[in-house]
């Protein structure tokens, strides 16, 4: 993997990148709140939120605010999930959407919605079980003495197709979406997602240093006293939790989990101590940007963030595949 030229010292580049991305996300957050069919000025937004009641700002608080929060959380969680899957499977093309984890999670979440519509939190739990099932299937089927990177993708695509097909057969032809993407996300959704994030994200940050050892051969990691199999298992479970929770709330969003970690690696390098929080933030930024863009470019028609991600992510995936000659040989 090539990184940006080393002219700027790494520490400076990393600090600068974090600061810039942080500011951009901060700005985007308020821009997203402000823009849309119900439009307010900056001053009205500020007053309505912090000073006095304003019915229009109250509507934004009830309708748009949770959507923005969900987009940030889900985007960050999906990106982290991709980063961790790529580390655990030692496969730069791993993405919970492409290899069927999101498909399994979405199917199980739909099932939970149909079976226990009243049970709070049943969707994320079912989604986790569905995602785990898909992951174990992929792992088992792609295993031939060792994990073949290309086999993982091929098996994953098949597993993904099966779950998408099952969802379509049982719950109608709508592309496996437990909710309808980010549209009409409520505070209840935001709370459920935040609860999962409160468990998954700290776990991911704690495991980040271990991810670095996954980039070595398992034998080398073991030689350093790292239980490579246990580490891989833990990293995978965290990845599945993150992907499943996001999918349970907003449905399947492809490619985000692929793009964000790759961009992040280009910018801050492959040290997971920095890469993990940066990917989290970048994923949050990208999904919120896609959602906000989708709301405004063709208003009053909304283009779902998942559709935008597919349009941008598809070509990106192809570029990675073309560079993938190296990947197969590793």
């Amino acid at each position, binding site marked *: *993997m*090539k*990184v940006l030229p*080393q002219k700027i010292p790494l520490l400076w580049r990393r600090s600068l990148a974090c600061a810039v991305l942080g500011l951009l996300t901060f700005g985007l957050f308020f821009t997203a709140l402000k823009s849309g069919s119900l439009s307010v000025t900056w001053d009205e937004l500020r007053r309505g939120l912090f000073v006095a009641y304003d019915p229009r700002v109250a509507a934004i608080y009830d309708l748009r605010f949770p959507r923005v929060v969900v987009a940030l959380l889900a985007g960050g969680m999906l990106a982290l999930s991709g980063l961790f899957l790529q580390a655990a499977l*030692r496969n730069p093309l791993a993405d919970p959407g492409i290899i069927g984890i999101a498909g399994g999670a979405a199917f199980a979440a739909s099932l939970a919605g149909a079976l226990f519509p009243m049970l709070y939190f049943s969707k994320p739990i079912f989604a986790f079980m569905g995602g785990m099932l898909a992951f174990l299937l992929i792992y088992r089927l792609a295993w031939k003495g060792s994990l073949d990177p290309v086999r993982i993708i091929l098996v994953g695509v098949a597993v993904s197709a099966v779950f998408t097909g099952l969802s379509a057969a049982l719950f109608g032809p709508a592309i496996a979406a437990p909710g309808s993407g980010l549209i009409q996300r409520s505070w209840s959704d935001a709370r459920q997602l935040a609860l999962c994030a409160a468990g998954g994200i700290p776990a991911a940050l704690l495991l980040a240093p271990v991810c*670095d*050892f996954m*980039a*070595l*051969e398992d*034998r*080398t990691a*073991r*030689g*350093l*006293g*790292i*239980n490579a199999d246990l580490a891989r298992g833990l990293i995978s479970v965290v990845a599945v939790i993150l992907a499943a929770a996001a999918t349970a709330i907003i449905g399947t969003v492809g490619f985000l989990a692929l793009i964000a970690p790759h961009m992040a690696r280009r910018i801050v*390098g*492959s*040290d997971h101590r920095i890469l993990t929080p940066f990917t989290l933030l970048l994923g949050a930024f990208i999904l919120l940007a896609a959602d906000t863009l989708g709301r405004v470019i063709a208003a009053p028609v909304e283009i779902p963030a998942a559709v935008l991600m597919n349009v941008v992510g598809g070509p990106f995936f192809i570029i990675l595949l073309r560079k993938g000659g190296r990947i197969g040989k*590793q």
Partner: protein
Amino acid sequence: MANNRLIVENISFSYGGRPVLRGVSFEVKTGKVTTLIGANACGKTTLLLLMTKNLKPDGGRVLLDGRDIAGIRLRDFARKAAVVHQKTAAPDDLSVEKLVAYGRTPHASALRGRTAADREMIAWAMKAAGITDIAAQPLGALSGGQRQLAFIAMALAQGAKLLFLDEPTTFLDIRYQVETLRLIRELNARLGLTVLMVLHDINQAIVYSDEVIGLKDGSVLTRGAPGEVITEDALFAMYGLRLPVREDGGRVWVPPV
């Protein structure tokens, strides 16, 4: 007092129903350089993996100072034995120094950061491997030989008294082959490291080892000082090929065909 005595006791191992090792026993001489030789697929690498807790034997055991290594925690084992594998992987943007610092992992604690002792070991290991001048370079910018030296330095930073190497010269040009083997010899002489390595090149095995163990079909065919062990008959038994063994200046050598 631990003296790093390593004994392989009647090890057997099969892979997918095919026996790879059948009752292998030997003792690695402490403070010496021992080399495993033998034809492809004779079980050399498998034996090394069994001796480093990467694989579990079907029968028999490996004893380190009288303790079965199966009962030693991975982390504790990593403080006593360091391994350089044939195949290595690492991100291209990882610096040499960071890689070498990984060698301190078995000594690290989550509560305290890197200690002065850690930094000292890292600097020492890089100096011993002769790579101090490229400490800041990313691995992606190194030649195969430099990369190999970086991984050896990582193993040295573990501060272990036992060093395992699986075909350390296979992918290197002749300069780095010699440089690597000289370094191994020097580490053995200066620090008293016990070295067990797998080599393909018979002449390198002769020159750089105190003891050679010849494997054939998963059993020990012969073992002893290189001059006694490397005979035309032994080579024929191991490789199925009649090779002349010459003697020159008190040392045997095998002219390549």
